[in-house]
């Protein structure tokens, strides 16, 4: 349409179509539609399933009644809560000390300790359980340390999950302890307050929101983790293994749905608390606060060095044991080293394909996930149309964080395996694994992008409209380059999680789309623990390489853009 045409036809009676607005309208609506189909609909299905019997007849709350009258299942609920509370106390205690050492002391090697603490993120949660069996199992290297107690059960589960959740808690605690106002400490010192009193009246209250948030996150991660109890739980049943047994073992989908909804409960609670707490934490730190810089103190620094070293020995020890297990010919009878366990095709002709499947799945997840989530966040934050739909999009994007992987996987099974669903073709394909993984980790990525986009000047869209440049071109030329380090970070985050995740995938894989993490689970299940360790180590190696690649690429990105990037946005 030329300028003359517009002049001739435009008027109040002919609202003109604007390509930029059209693109953002379509974008917002597409985003809402995608999340409705892939987040809301499956969750509604699982809810409905819990009200039906296995042949699909509506039975009201019968399933719940049946659940709460089954002694075995109630015992699992009790076991889960008990484990979750224990892990919460232990992991929060350890992580608080570790985080305190990293942020509030002058302990040496803080950077190294920080890196060591991230080890568990690189591995599937199963790895710790397998390693613990090598350490404390019936033929464990140091089983004497348990004084005759069995590692198969609560002890093993608590130890294994503590390893797995440690970095997640630590990151929250470090954030909470980093935002200290030096002025408060100076005032306390000026008044001659004792250290102990300063700790309880300033440090702990200042970090209290982080502590609360961390507590709920650990509780939820623990109660919803499936890998560790599956491997090391023995006869000690928990909710997460119950779902698996009900659905995969007894094919009782309705009971699985009931357990799934019960698992959803702590997750939603934790999610809500986290949301509230985050808002407070931001408000608490005033713009005039002076950042706290710790002063050296020999005794304290030494004590924390010893403490962090012990925790690090545990973390490295678990990983080291897994590496060792993967290399020993036949523990404990033949201790010569071998690479034979890495020959996965020897056990299963398609042994290696599960690893390549994982790579493929993780790559697609990173690629599609990053693009879709970035676009979603862009439309939520920058589109100038449909305020209601944008609010809905943002709300839908928050839901996955409150949904445990197992529940999501189950919901996908129910939703996509229905033959009448036009999308049922996805069932059993690589695509559904990718989709479920993108959805599973959607929220964290979405929030990172929204935060970054919020920091960009809100008038870029207005300026580009006045220059007759459509908004999507400005997004590609301005927003994407500015956010590139974060985009890379999110892609790696999705890749790593896709490599290590078990929970959703365990319900969704087909024989030809089996993933490496599932292979670890299956090999362990049939007693092939050395190859299982080897596969877990392959996942760790992949994660480490990808992480190193990210460091190199980010560094060169930042170097190339240093001319215009005055402060680091990575």
């Amino acid at each position: 349409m030329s300028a003359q045409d517009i002049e001739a036809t435009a008027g109040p009676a002919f609202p003109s179509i604007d390509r930029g607005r059209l693109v953002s309208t379509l974008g917002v609506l597409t985003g809402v539609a995608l999340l409705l189909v892939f987040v809301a609909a499956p969750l509604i299905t699982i809810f409905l399933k819990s009200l039906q019997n296995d042949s699909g007849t509506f039975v009201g709350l019968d399933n719940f009644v049946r659940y709460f009258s089954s002694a075995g299942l109630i015992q699992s609920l009790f076991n889960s809560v008990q484990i979750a509370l224990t892990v919460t106390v232990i992991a929060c205690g350890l992580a608080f000390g570790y985080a305190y050492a990293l942020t509030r002391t002058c302990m040496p090697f803080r950077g190294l300790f920080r890196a060591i603490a991230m080890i568990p993120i690189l591995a599937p949660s199963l790895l710790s359980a397998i390693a613990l069996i090598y350490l404390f199992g019936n033929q464990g290297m140091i089983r004497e340390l348990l004084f005759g107690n069995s590692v198969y059960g609560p002890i093993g589960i608590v130890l294994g999950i503590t390893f797995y959740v440690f970095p997640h808690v630590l990151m929250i605690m470090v954030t909470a302890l980093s935002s200290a106002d030096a002025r408060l400490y100076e005032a306390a010192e000026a008044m001659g307050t004792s250290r102990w009193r300063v700790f309880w009246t300033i440090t702990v209250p200042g970090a209290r929101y982080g502590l609360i948030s961390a507590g709920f996150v650990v509780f939820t991660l623990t109660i919803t983790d499936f890998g560790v109890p599956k491997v090391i739980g023995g006869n000690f049943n928990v909710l997460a293994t119950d779902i698996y047994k009900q659905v995969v073992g007894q094919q009782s989908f309705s009971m699985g749905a009931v357990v799934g909804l019960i698992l959803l409960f702590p997750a939603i609670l934790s999610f809500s608390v986290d949301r509230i707490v985050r808002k407070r934490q931001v408000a608490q730190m005033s713009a005039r606060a002076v950042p706290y810089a710790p002063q050296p103190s020999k005794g304290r620094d030494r004590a924390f060095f010893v403490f962090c070293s012990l925790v690090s020995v545990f973390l490295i020890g678990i990983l080291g044991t897994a590496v060792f297990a993967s290399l020993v010919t036949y523990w404990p009878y033949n201790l010569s080293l071998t690479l034979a366990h890495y020959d996965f095709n020897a056990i299963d002709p398609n042994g290696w394909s599960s690893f390549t499947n994982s790579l493929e799945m993780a790559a697609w997840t990173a690629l599609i996930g990053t693009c879709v989530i970035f676009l979603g966040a862009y439309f939520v934050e920058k589109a100038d149309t449909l305020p209601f739909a944008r609010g809905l999009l943002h709300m839908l994007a928050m839901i996955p964080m409150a949904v445990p992987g197992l529940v999501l996987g189950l919901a996908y099974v129910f939703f996509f395996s229905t033959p009448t669903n036009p999308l049922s073709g996805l069932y059993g394909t690589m695509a559904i694994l990718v989709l479920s993984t993108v959805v599973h980790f959607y929220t964290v990525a979405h929030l990172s992008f929204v935060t970054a986009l919020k920091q960009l000047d809100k008038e870029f869209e207005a300026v580009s409209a006045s220059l007759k440049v459509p908004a999507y071109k400005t997004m590609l030329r301005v927003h994407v380059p500015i956010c590139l380090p974060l985009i890379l970070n999110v892609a790696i985050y999705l890749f790593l999680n896709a490599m290590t995740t078990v929970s959703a995938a365990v319900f969704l894989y087909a024989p030809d789309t089996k993933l490496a993490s599932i292979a670890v689970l299956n090999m362990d299940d049939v007693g092939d623990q050395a190859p299982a360790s080897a596969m877990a180590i392959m996942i760790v190696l992949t994660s480490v390489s990808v992480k190193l690649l990210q460091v190199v690429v980010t560094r060169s990105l930042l170097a190339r853009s240093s001319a215009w990037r005055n402060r680091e946005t990575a």
Partner: protein
Amino acid sequence: MNMAAKRPNRVRPAAFVAPQDAPSHDAFLEIHNVSKRFGDFQALTDISLTIERGTFVCFLGPSGCGKTTLLRAIAGLERQSSGRIIQDGRDISNLPPSQRDFGIVFQSYSLFPNLTVNANVGYGLVNQGLPKAQIAARVQELLELVHLPSSGPKYPAALSGGEQQRVALARALAMQPGLLLLDEPLSALDAKVRVDLRHEMKQLQRRLGVTTIMVTHDQEEALALADVVVVMSKGNIEQVGTPMEVYANPQSAFVADFVGHMNLLRGTAQADGTVRIGSRTLQLDPNQVEGLTGDVLVSFRPEDVMFRGLDAATDNQLQGYIESVDFLGAFSRARVRVDGFDGAVFEADLSANMLRDFGVDAGSTLPLALPRNRICIYPGNERTAGLVKSSGERRA
């Protein structure tokens, strides 16, 4: 309440306004009955205004008065709830911003940080698919126009705030828009840079003849730059006029209070055409009264308080007690108390040589007069500009 303080017979917001030297009436932008609501909040109430081609117009008012909303409605960045906007004969009321014809500069500069100055200025031109050489030439021409001929290869982060705003100005002018919109363009800059850039913007606008609308809360800026000042308050236009008119002849207590320094004292209009403050009676020009009675605000500027040349014929002579004197360089501003004013205090300007000649200091008493032709009265008894400049109000 500010509506009550307005004198309806004097306000002509929709009036046809033009700079005095404009050759002919040539309406470029017509705003007809534009209203805008955000939920329960009425941001603009039935605004009508006509802007002449080639003029420099300032929307002036305190924050929240609707000036930015009106600018954004003109740009299409906010859609008006009702009303029409016609630019250069074309009804643009429902057009998206990309189909309107304007360049815009924001307070935050809004330069693309990852693009060089050249790429920023040429951003729209590149999208038009013009040949590279032509774009480069045009960009260079624009950079020279804003006195940054050699900054092209730099990134915005390497420029000072004032330089960045010049680049933003060049970028806004690149597409040769018919209308230049400036949203508080100088507010983020240092005082000195602000005055320099203000002067340059005025020159540039004169040279290019582009119709320009600037939003500002800084009345000094508006008076210095504009051909026409549109004073706004609470979603309404209070007054439209040249800077001189708005300053010398404010049509409402709000304008009187907001533009320039103004003493506003509570008084009572009398049937005989005088006004009482406390126990004192002041003479006014007859045209001031116009049937007003009851509570009024009595206004006069600090610079209009007379200290010299008082004789028997001078009206409104009073004995002023100087409470304090603020030295402000070229002149000093005194806080003056007068017996019988019910404790009200007003400000009066004293020139430097007055101070020397009279030896005025805090505590001295001297005769003064409030010239009857410099006093304006407005109905009502509350200041509305929200900028209480003297504590006299609070004491009274």
